[in-house]
């Protein structure tokens, strides 16, 4: 992992920090930059970046943690499916602990449901192959980074003629919510650190319509500390010069047009749909659903189940945190009622969640 040391070089970091400080020192206002992606949030905390930046740069966390923006109703749906007999719920680890209205997958597992944590959607296909008498439901949560692998898993299951592999879809896409937040009069975002891995799929050009509509600077930025510092510097320069452009700091991975093959795979299996975002609400065309040709893999269509009415926990500020309007310490539940051991909101559960990051790394 050469990349890990090269992009954490203390001397280069010091130089970048000095340049950032010199760039913003005469600017009359505080520059508010939103890191959209949960991995950015984690990296910023993990490396202690916020405290190293000048006071004129304010970093706020955005809606880019897929587990965090998944609505309570989805967790309730997964819980209802987990209660079906002869069912295996296959999921990435974080979803297991996200509280639903009255239960969570972790609680259902303790009561006898079969929940399997997988590291790839293809592992869920293998589970289905090995358990032909059981319905395997994969929880399809994530952005463009993971969705192509889920499309691949569905095509693999189709190729193997599996009739017991399903996906409960809650796929979301960028940059819809960034536009929603850019248009929010209560929120002043001066620039976006655009997600690294999502951009590797959708391409840097995908942010051009956002820049055209809202004149907000966008810099596609990598996840290592030097990437983040350089991204911040590029955004600060745009803000100070009164510019709004798409720039690509992470050009060692992200191309202007993205990954065409992955995009085609997505198009083949999924089609855009409106999606509910926790804290933000419904955003048109910001989700992905299975095309009718693949409806037989859709757990929501294939298994009608009773889902309890969704109840958000009173006092949980996840929604406001996901919009960058408040910080975890502003939430009365943070560190008191809501902890990683007994989380109230998804932001405390996910390894990419802002509250989990603040709890784990905040000084």
């Amino acid at each position, binding site marked *: 992992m050469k990349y890990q040391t090269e992009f954490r070089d*203390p001397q280069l970091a010091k130089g970048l920090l000095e340049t950032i400080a010199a760039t913003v020192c005469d600017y009359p206002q505080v520059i508010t930059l939103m890191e959209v992606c949960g991995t950015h949030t984690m990296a910023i905390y*993990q490396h202690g970046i916020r405290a190293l930046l000048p006071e004129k740069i304010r970093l706020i966390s955005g809606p880019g943690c897929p587990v965090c923006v998944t609505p309570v109703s989805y967790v309730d749906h997964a819980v209802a499916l987990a209660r079906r007999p002869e069912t295996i719920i296959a999921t990435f680890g974080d979803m297991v602990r996200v509280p639903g209205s009255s239960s969570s997958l972790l609680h259902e597992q303790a009561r006898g449901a079969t929940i399997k944590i997988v590291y790839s959607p293809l592992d869920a296909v293998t589970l289905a192959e090995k358990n032909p008498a059981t319905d395997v439901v994969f929880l399809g949560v994530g952005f463009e980074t993971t969705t192509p692998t889920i499309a691949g898993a569905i095509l693999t299951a189709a190729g193997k003629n599996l009739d017991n592999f399903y996906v409960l879809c809650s796929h979301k896409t960028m940059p819809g919510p960034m536009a929603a937040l850019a248009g929010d009069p209560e929120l002043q975002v001066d620039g976006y650190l655009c997600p690294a891995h999502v951009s590797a799929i959708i391409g840097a050009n995908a942010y051009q319509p956002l820049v055209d509509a809202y004149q907000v600077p966008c810099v596609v930025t990598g996840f290592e*500390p030097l990437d983040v510092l350089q991204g911040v510097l590029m955004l600060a320069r745009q803000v100070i010069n009164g510019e709004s452009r798409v720039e690509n700091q992470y050009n060692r991975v992200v191309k202007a047009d993205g990954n065409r093959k992955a995009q085609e795979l997505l198009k083949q299996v999924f089609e855009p749909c409106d999606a509910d975002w926790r804290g933000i609400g419904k955003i048109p065309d910001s989700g992905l659903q299975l095309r009718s040709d693949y409806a037989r893999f859709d757990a929501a269509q294939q298994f009608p189940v009773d889902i309890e009415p969704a109840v958000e926990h009173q006092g949980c500020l996840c929604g406001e945190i996901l919009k960058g309007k408040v910080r975890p310490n502003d939430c009365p539940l943070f560190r008191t009622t809501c902890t990683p051991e007994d989380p109230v909101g998804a932001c405390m559960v996910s390894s990419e969640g802002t509250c989990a990051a603040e709890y*784990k790394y*905040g000084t």
Partner: protein
Amino acid sequence: MKSDVILLGHGSGGKLSHQLLDDLIVPILSGIDQRDQNDAAVLAAQHGRLAFTTDSYVVDPIFFPGGNIGDLAIHGTVNDLAMAGATPVAISVGLIIEEGLAISELKKILESMRVAAGQADVTIVTGDTKVVPRGKADKLFINTSGIGVIEHDLEISGSNAQAGDKILINGTIGDHGMAVLACREGLELESAIVTDSAPLNGMVNELIEELGEQLHTLRDPTRGGVATTLKEIALQSQVEITLSETTLPINPSVNGACAILGLDPLFVANEGKLLAFVAEEAADQALAILQRHLHGEQAAIIGEVTATAPGKVRLKTAIGGLRAIEMLAGEHLPRIC
């Protein structure tokens, strides 16, 4: 042994049980042909203080790169005794076997327990075997308890870390947890990650003999990893601990696998590592002791103790930032030991 797998009858207490004990377990574990027919092992009374510990092992899979559940169980209990500053004397072994376990696998595990006990210079003096129906356990669970004797008057304890202390570790962090995880999940890595499971009592004896009162705290960072163990010590001793990211020894494969899976090596379990808190003036000597040891070649000084913010653990990051380190919350990696 007629059957090549464990049958329920092997745990019945009857003929098959006797056969299993006399033909396999006792000769391998104790190295003697005939077992003592008494209900308890009798040990000579020891001078000084005794240390007593117990631990159960449920690791999945039971064989992993560099070790298996058997040597892990011996190392774990030996190390728990060593961390109290005790010299391990006697160990008990309780086996809970799932019906159907291959005798050949059990034999291999018992043999490695014998080797591990030999390396740690400790005797397996008593044991118990139960067999449960298929599906009621997962292949094999092992409980080991150990007694050790403390032959000195030093207070080596988690509540004895002192401001000014330097913190040492005897090698790379996170190897065991990632070795088991990579093996269990079939992760294909460029170079295999091997467990660090090893007995540390020899190394501890040398630290005690050569450092004496300058050795304040010893702890093995097993489940919860280095981060959780240091947080425990910070709370117990009411001191502040500051780690330096650039000095943390981490195997590149472990770093890579952690990066892929979103894990932090600081929270990943070790089974052959110790954290030693020593007086500042003894730090270089302690480092030399660790480094001359087989299991300490990559030893390093990774942090220091101050009195500023009692109970806090902080990490100075490579780029000069500062972040807090908290205890592991929830289940990180299930069944790694």
